[in-house]
């Protein structure tokens, strides 16, 4: 364990917690328990909502994280999510099979990941422009091809995890969720494990930090970037599938509503670490749940716009380094040139 903490300096999740989050985490836990004891219903509902709102953000941010860890910036997450949400929805409408629908969504995201990889690795196009192309394209295609009157055939239902679901507080919050929500949480752990404990992860981090070094030890940098950006696209596709197949059950134009961009912010705030990403997605989810709760209780009368802009201001503050510095992978954004 000790050697693994040093695997990447200043950035293992333990370190992350230690440096920026340990006190906050303790406060959150104490707050949650206190809240539960005094207002069990409000606490449960807010935590459940937090988890739910965080799910597309976690997935989107994991997509961004995997790309940037491999050296490819992805600002097309929004578009990947949107188009996947759409195709997943269509698949559900026409097949009625939710599993197939989710797969279609994931594949769509992966396909767009492939497009991004093609633009940024093969064409060596500017990666930000590549992402912008994906965003506009997804908006146009979904808008153009979407017809209303299509009705889905159900959505993914919560699965209660046996006796765990009846635990107080954590039960209904954590162990009574639909599959993609579980999957998102599992992916956080898997991504952490993969990135920091496996060969693939070591190589991925190497090509994001110093592709030349990876090349000199025989790692095919561009091929790995392709693979990773495609996998990342699949994760964004899962986020899209979450929206139509699990959360809402139907599709609407532009229904991602900026979640892909917020996911980028979540990724940076999470310091490019899966657990950091999870924590910051929960924070963003919590901000939304809180602002709903504040309106529900009707006690605080600040215009809701001010609460609405909080997550964005927070991101700027974090990015500006007022709350601990982030260090992005050194070679992100740069096409790798051989010879």
């Amino acid at each position, binding site marked *: 364990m000790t050697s693994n903490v040093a695997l990447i300096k200043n950035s293992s999740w333990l370190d992350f917690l230690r440096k920026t989050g340990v006190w906050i985490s303790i406060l959150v836990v104490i707050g949650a328990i206190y809240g539960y004891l005094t207002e069990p219903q409000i606490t449960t509902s807010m935590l459940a909502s937090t988890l739910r709102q965080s799910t597309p953000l976690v997935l989107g941010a994991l997509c961004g994280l995997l790309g940037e860890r491999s050296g490819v910036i992805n600002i097309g997450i929004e578009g990947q999510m949107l188009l996947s949400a759409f195709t997943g929805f269509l698949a559900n409408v026409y097949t009625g099979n939710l599993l197939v629908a989710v797969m279609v969504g994931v594949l769509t995201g992966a396909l767009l990941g492939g497009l991004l990889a093609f633009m940024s690795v093969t064409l060596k196009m500017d990666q930000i422009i590549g992402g912008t192309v994906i965003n506009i394209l997804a908006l146009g295609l979904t808008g153009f091809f979407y017809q209303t009157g299509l009705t889905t055939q159900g959505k993914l239902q919560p699965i209660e995890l046996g006796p765990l679901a009846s635990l107080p507080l954590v039960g209904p919050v954590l162990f009574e969720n639909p599959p993609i929500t579980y999957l998102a949480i599992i992916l956080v752990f898997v991504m952490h494990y*993969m990135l920091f404990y496996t*060969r693939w992860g070591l190589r991925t*981090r*190497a090509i994001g930090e110093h592709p030349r070094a990876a*090349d*000199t030890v*025989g790692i095919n940098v561009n091929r790995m970037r392709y693979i990773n950006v495609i996998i990342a696209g699949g994760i964004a596709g899962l986020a899209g599938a979450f929206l139509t197949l699990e959360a809402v059950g139907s599709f609407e134009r532009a229904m991602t509503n900026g979640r892909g961009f917020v996911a980028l912010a979540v990724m940076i705030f999470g310091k490019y670490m899966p657990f950091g990403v999870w924590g910051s997605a929960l924070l963003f989810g919590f901000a939304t749940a809180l602002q709903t709760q504040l309106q529900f209780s009707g006690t605080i009368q600040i215009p809701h716009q001010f609460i609405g802009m909080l997550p964005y201001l927070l991101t700027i503050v974090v990015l500006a380094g007022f709350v601990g510095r982030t260090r992005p992978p050194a070679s992100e954004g740069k096409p790798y040139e051989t010879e």
Partner: protein
Amino acid sequence: MSNTDKQVVLEAKGISKHFPGVIANNNVDLALHKGEILALLGENGAGKSTLMNILYGLYHPTEGEIWIKGQHVQLQSPRDAIAHGIGMVHQHFQLVPVMTVAENVILGAEVTTFAGRIDMRQAVREVSELSHKYGLAVDPNAVIEDLPVGIQQRVEIIKALYRKADILILDEPTAVLTPQEANELFQIMRELTKQGVSIIFITHKLKEVLAVADQIAVLRRGEMVGSTLPSEATEASLAEMMVGRNVILQVDKSEAHPGAAILQVEDAHVLDDRKTSVVKGVSFEVRAGEVLGVAGVQGNGQRELVEALTGLRPLTQGRFIIDGHDATRYTPRQITDLDVAHIPEDREKHGLVMAYPIEDNTILNQYYETPYSSGVIVNRKAIENHALKLVEEFDVRTPSVTVAASTLSGGNKQKLIVAREFSKPVKLLIAAQPTRGIDVGSIEFIHQQIIKQRDRGVAVLLVSAELDEIMSLSDRIVVMFGGRIMATLPIAEATREKLGLLMAGSHG
């Protein structure tokens, strides 16, 4: 000699490598025998690294064949070279700074248990074993960016050994080492050869070659000019082979008539980008009408010193005075306005805006002055005339002054910078590596220009890694080593041997 008895483990036959506009290698033959240290010599740009990159599969030769242990091989990528037992320590280290030693060592050749999990404990153990076996003390869990370069180099060697390399290429391994570190490296190299490893060792330092090599090969301008044995060579004979007698430049210059001190540096201390001290208390002065040469192996603080003197990097201690003004805290613009001209070390990164047309590059240091602008509005006509005049005067070969600077050849780029810097009044010229990597004609021209400025009474600070350049241009020479000035010599007292020794850190 006994070499013929030994097996040839690596052979290059008729290797050529063409880059756009450059022939880096031309029909090069090279043979490495088992267990020997082959030293490869050559000036900057002679094509040494290119040849090694070809042997390591990073570049593909335009022509020629590679034979390893009697087998004709095609090296598509480093993966192939590694598979054939070749390991390379690159001139610029190929280590991931944020990862640990062990991670860097195993990268690309990881041992995994189940589900792709890296066996880190095993890796750490192997790194420890390797470092014991060859005397390469390294902490496997240390993070690369925290390690000094000497240790980083050991990591590179361990990386190669971990991959079971029995042919090791070391590209200028000593350029960044202190003399002690270099000596330790030589011991390691001898230890390795004892265990059957064959080594190609690239260096500019003749003394090192004589000390460790079993065999010596010399590249000049991309061609193999010959090979010899240490026992049959002297430093002088090697230098002759490297440079070629006919290319030693003799600049016509008269006696200097130094005037008042223009630049006075007092106890300057400077940090590099990694915040380590690389200039450690340097003092000297340059007087009007003289050339002060700063000799030294690259990476001994010269670059940071120059950046400090041009306002790009702060001094942490000490001060410097230019023409009577304490310029220690001046901005680059303020220093330029003291009539200081600067030929930067990296012409493409700092000297020119490659996408700009030539004419715009001729006013980078004076666009804000008349007649090129009123301070607000640019006068295109004046700029064009200025550019045309400079191109003519300095013989910059170009079809027009509106083409991008990126279209110029290296020598012409450098002439363009020189032209620009000399096109306004100059009292002090700071020239860093002014002729690196450019053709002989341009070198000669630039040298003449520098002497011309000196004779007009300009104070010249010349920083160069080329001994010839230093010796033919300077009136006085200071030698820098490890961030300090080893000695100051009048030109009359400077000999190659003396300078070489000082540059290597030993007191002549």
